[in-house]
């Protein structure tokens, strides 16, 4: 019998708000948070659109913090508060963090102005250090820092799951954070045609699974979840929110940015995750997609769903959160896990922004228009990233 692994605390900072309930409200409203980027350093760009994290000035009370660490700070505080861990329990908690691009905003700023670079900003483990020093989490425990591109959040959750399910940890704090609003990031993704370039209002640009999709919109933010061994959580009186049943990750060995149109690599990650969870495909009742709004991702993901679920695929509800939040790169998956935890607990599936029956481009039951009351028990989360990485996780709603 596998050790049961649950999530007992969730925090999220997203373009929809600085905490997870605001994030959920934004998802349920189904309206994109993207806007035109008007900050001076974006002036040379003919087309600069993004969905910045909605963090009011002064909310993070530590000046000089890199943006992604500031986002992580809020998410960690929220997740720890919900989990109810006391000081001793925090100290005994391990830490797994992830980011794809680290302190890119601050490094570009230093590059431009010739200023000094504060210690650690060339590195990728600032959030790990922050969780230790600010919140006393895992001061004397092992930590992992993952930087696996856009699957990083799910990979971090999977690594924490391995530790708890395998008996190496009772409790792990998982954090993913990304700050993307700087010219080098915008330019890099524009250069390869990954971003939406349509001549539409920014809030209409991201439209996962729509035939009008032409690329993603940059998002940013952070999420934190407390992953625990179920008996340990119950013993301290915590209320488990959702169960993690298994995960997997594969490499496509195909292309740094492209995905095979057949979706076979995404399907491979899904099948391995189901095998890890010891569940058949028929057990899955809903899907939370990577859903970037790029031509290739959404069609490949749809193909993978049909490959794995066969005739059932067309009837499985599919949620695509990036329509609202944009794509927060390495933090996106964990932000979506945070959203998933909240919407499953609320018994409702959020609609996909900007995609309607008239524009739907796939044979899937993509949730559109209005939030849909539903209580699926087993949900699969899929994700893909540059470098040909495909990761998937299986989660269970706890009634």
């Amino acid at each position, binding site marked *: *019998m596998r050790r049961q692994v649950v999530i007992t605390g969730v925090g999220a900072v997203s373009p929809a708000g600085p905490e997870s309930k605001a994030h959920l409200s934004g998802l349920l409203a189904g309206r994109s948070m993207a806007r035109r980027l008007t900050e001076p350093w974006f002036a040379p760009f003919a087309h600069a659109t993004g969905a910045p994290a909605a963090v009011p000035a002064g909310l993070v009370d530590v000046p000089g913090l890199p943006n992604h660490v500031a986002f992580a700070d809020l998410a960690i505080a929220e997740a720890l508060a919900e989990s109810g861990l006391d000081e001793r329990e925090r100290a005994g908690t391990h830490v797994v963090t992830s980011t794809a*691009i680290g302190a890119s905003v601050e490094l570009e700023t230093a590059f431009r102005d010739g200023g000094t670079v504060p210690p650690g900003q060339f590195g990728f483990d600032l959030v790990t250090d922050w969780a230790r020093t600010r919140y006393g989490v895992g001061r004397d425990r092992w930590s992992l820092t993952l930087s696996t591109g856009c699957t990083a959040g799910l990979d971090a959750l999977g690594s924490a799951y391995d530790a708890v*399910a395998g*008996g190496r940890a009772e409790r792990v704090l998982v954090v993913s954070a990304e700050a993307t609003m700087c010219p080098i990031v915008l330019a890099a993704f524009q*250069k390869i045609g990954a971003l939406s370039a349509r001549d539409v209002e920014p809030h209409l640009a991201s439209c996962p699974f729509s035939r009008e999709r032409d690329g993603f919109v940059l998002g940013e933010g952070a999420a934190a979840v407390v992953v625990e061994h179920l008996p340990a959580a119950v013993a301290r009186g915590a209320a488990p929110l959702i169960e993690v049943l298994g995960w997997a*990750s594969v*490499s496509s060995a195909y292309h740094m940015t492209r995905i095979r149109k057949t979706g076979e690599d995404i399907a491979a990650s899904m099948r391995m995750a189901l095998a890890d969870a010891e569940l058949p495909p028929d057990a899955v009742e809903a899907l939370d997609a990577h859903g970037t709004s790029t031509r290739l991702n959404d069609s490949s993901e749809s193909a993978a769903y049909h490959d794995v679920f066969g005739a059932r695929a067309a009837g499985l509800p599919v949620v695509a959160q990036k329509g609202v939040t944009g794509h927060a790169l390495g933090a996106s998956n964990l932000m979506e896990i945070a959203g998933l935890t909240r919407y499953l607990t609320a018994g409702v599936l959020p609609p996909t922004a900007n995609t309607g029956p008239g524009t739907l481009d796939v044979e899937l039951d993509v949730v559109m228009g209005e939030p849909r009351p539903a209580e699926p028990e087993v949900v699969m989360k899929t994700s893909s990233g540059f470098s040909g990485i495909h990761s998937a996780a299986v989660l269970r709603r706890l009634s």
Partner: protein
Amino acid sequence: MRTVLHELELVAVSTRLPADGETARIALGAYGPRGRGDHLDLPAFATDPRQAPGIPTHLRKRIDRFSAVAYLAVAEALATLTAEQRPAADRIGLFLANTRAGWSYGEPELGLLVHSGAESMHAYQATAWFPAAAQGEITIELDLRGCAKTTSGSESGFGEALWLARDALERGAIDLAVVGAAESLVTGFVLRDWAQQHPLPDSGPAEGAVVFALRRPSGSPAVVLGELRHRADGTGPDGIGPDGSWVPTLAAAVRLHRSVGRPATGSESVALGGGYWITVIPMKERTVNTVLSETTVTGDYAAVARHELVIPGPVADVFEMTRDVTRWSEYMPAVTAAAFRSESTDGDLVEITAEANNQKHTWQSRRTVDRAAWTIDFSRVGAVEPLLSMEGRWQFIAGEDGTRAVLTHRYATTSQDSLDFYGDATRSNATRDLEGLAEYFSTKANR
């Protein structure tokens, strides 16, 4: 089912490091640190490794130097594998540490962005700079389709990569893990990481890659990496803390490489940085007949541990030697006393005093002996919390080289800490007991 791995078998090693005394001259120019002069000579490749003969031509213009050295090291390690050692593409994983990303590609691109505009940038910035770039280019070029991950802990990234590789092997996702560190600090901008008032590092390479190909123990003669672990204070038995190297992850991988290549007289603990440690068990200590050990977590605070070894003696003799607990202290190092409290056809009651985790324990165990099947089942009597139960079986199988002894323990406890305690004790004692039994028959046979 996940099987806990305590050891990883080393099947290949490869390095791509600058030669002793080799340096790369880094022009600090507009982007380098102030107050350090016009240039710095770093312990790095004098010529750009992207132009090395082993790099495919189509990769040269689209990758960073750290990806180039990683590619060369991984390709070489895989090239040394035998057909038996190399599994199918989807069973090979790649786990690389990279802690500073790729500024030999990224710095010129930032310069183009700032001075010439985004249109002047090259498309590969999006895929060359980030730490997972090497992982992607290598898996694509070498057709590796298993789980691949990149770790970035500044001090502990290499230990983290080993950790994730071990996890992937444990959950059965892959059969071979290529694990290493790949770094390159050879640009002015990234050298701003050291403020003017701080001395520059003075040890280890500033560029290079070291990789290890690892798999589950197969029983073949091999160097073995054991007990990947983390110590709370960041130091180990020798009190070694964070080093003063250019890149701690690369320095740690170099330390491990040196240890596995050294003609050691015994096992050696190697600091991996950030509190991670691993033990190198040289081939000299391991013969073909080595105790195979695996532990499987079977539920909440419950596990099964299986140990086996070929004992050089006839099955009847080995069985009898094991049945007669009064002889245990002769060859089982952990046992200080053992006696029968009662013997009957229904079963024996034995009392054993032994050391476990440096503490002396006495307990009674009820045993059922089946001479026809060559098995001895045992179950601890009156287990006291935190131990809930401890039972198992000795099984003896006659073979051409002697008798294969299989010792299985099933145990349950009340907490993770106690599960770890009994896991450590069971593994240590079962290994020593089986080795003692083999040594006894080996010595007896020689007399």
